[in-house]
């Protein structure tokens, strides 16, 4: 099966010590590799204000990671761990590969159109070399 790409964002309590944050991340990494997935990148966004209160908290420590896996088991396991983990107050997993595929398609489509367009602009183009030639003797 083809590989899937996921975005995983989770929010920790803002008072979580740095060591605990790293611990949560490393356990997730372990869990992911165990299930045959791979964590592409981990990005700590740090403390941010949340748009609404979650568990009476107004702020949270955001962590964003990109996960690659060929099946959904990895996500299931990671979400289970996040649910169990105490400092985690919120999480969200989004599958992105299909959107990226669509994005690629659109990009290719646009490039093809862009490649077709020069033909139209070629017609007036010969005028400019002529102008250049005309300009060359004077220069």
């Amino acid at each position, binding site marked *: 099966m083809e590989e899937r790409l996921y*975005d995983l*964002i989770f*929010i920790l309590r803002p008072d979580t010590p740095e060591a605990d944050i790293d611990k949560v991340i490393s356990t997730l990494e372990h869990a992911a590799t165990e299930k045959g997935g791979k964590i592409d990148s981990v990005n700590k966004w740090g403390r941010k204000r*949340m*748009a*609404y*209160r*979650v568990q009476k908290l107004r702020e*949270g420590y955001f962590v*964003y990671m990109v996960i690659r896996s060929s099946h959904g088991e990895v996500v299931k396991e990671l979400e289970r761990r996040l649910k169990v983990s105490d400092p985690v107050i*919120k*999480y*969200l997993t*989004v599958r992105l590969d299909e*959107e*990226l595929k*669509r*994005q690629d398609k*659109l*990009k290719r489509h*646009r490039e093809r159109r862009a490649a077709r367009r020069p033909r139209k602009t070629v017609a007036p183009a010969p005028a400019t070399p002529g102008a250049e030639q005309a300009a060359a003797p004077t220069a």
Partner: protein
Amino acid sequence: MAEENAQQQSYGGGGGSRSSGPGGPGGRPGGPAKRGKRNFVRKKKVCRFCVDKADFIDYKKAEILAPFIQERGKILPRRMTGTCARHQRWLTVAIKRAQNIALLPFAAEL
């Protein structure tokens, strides 16, 4: 401001000359002549994502999505923002995702 007024006037004049149109807004004959009566012209809105040639709308960038929600947290309709149908579709999905991860509010807090 001055530019806007000039644009509006030119639009109005165009509407008057096109009075043969099938009863469009402001297409009434003699409409622009009577000044101060129903002489408003809507500015043509362009989809902001089409201008940027956006292939997808990132739900993680709350600052991009923020202009498309109301104070109360509602998603603004297409007719208000001028977003094209395709991008509005992507936009709603992005906004809903952002709401889920507390980047955007579901409703204003009070």
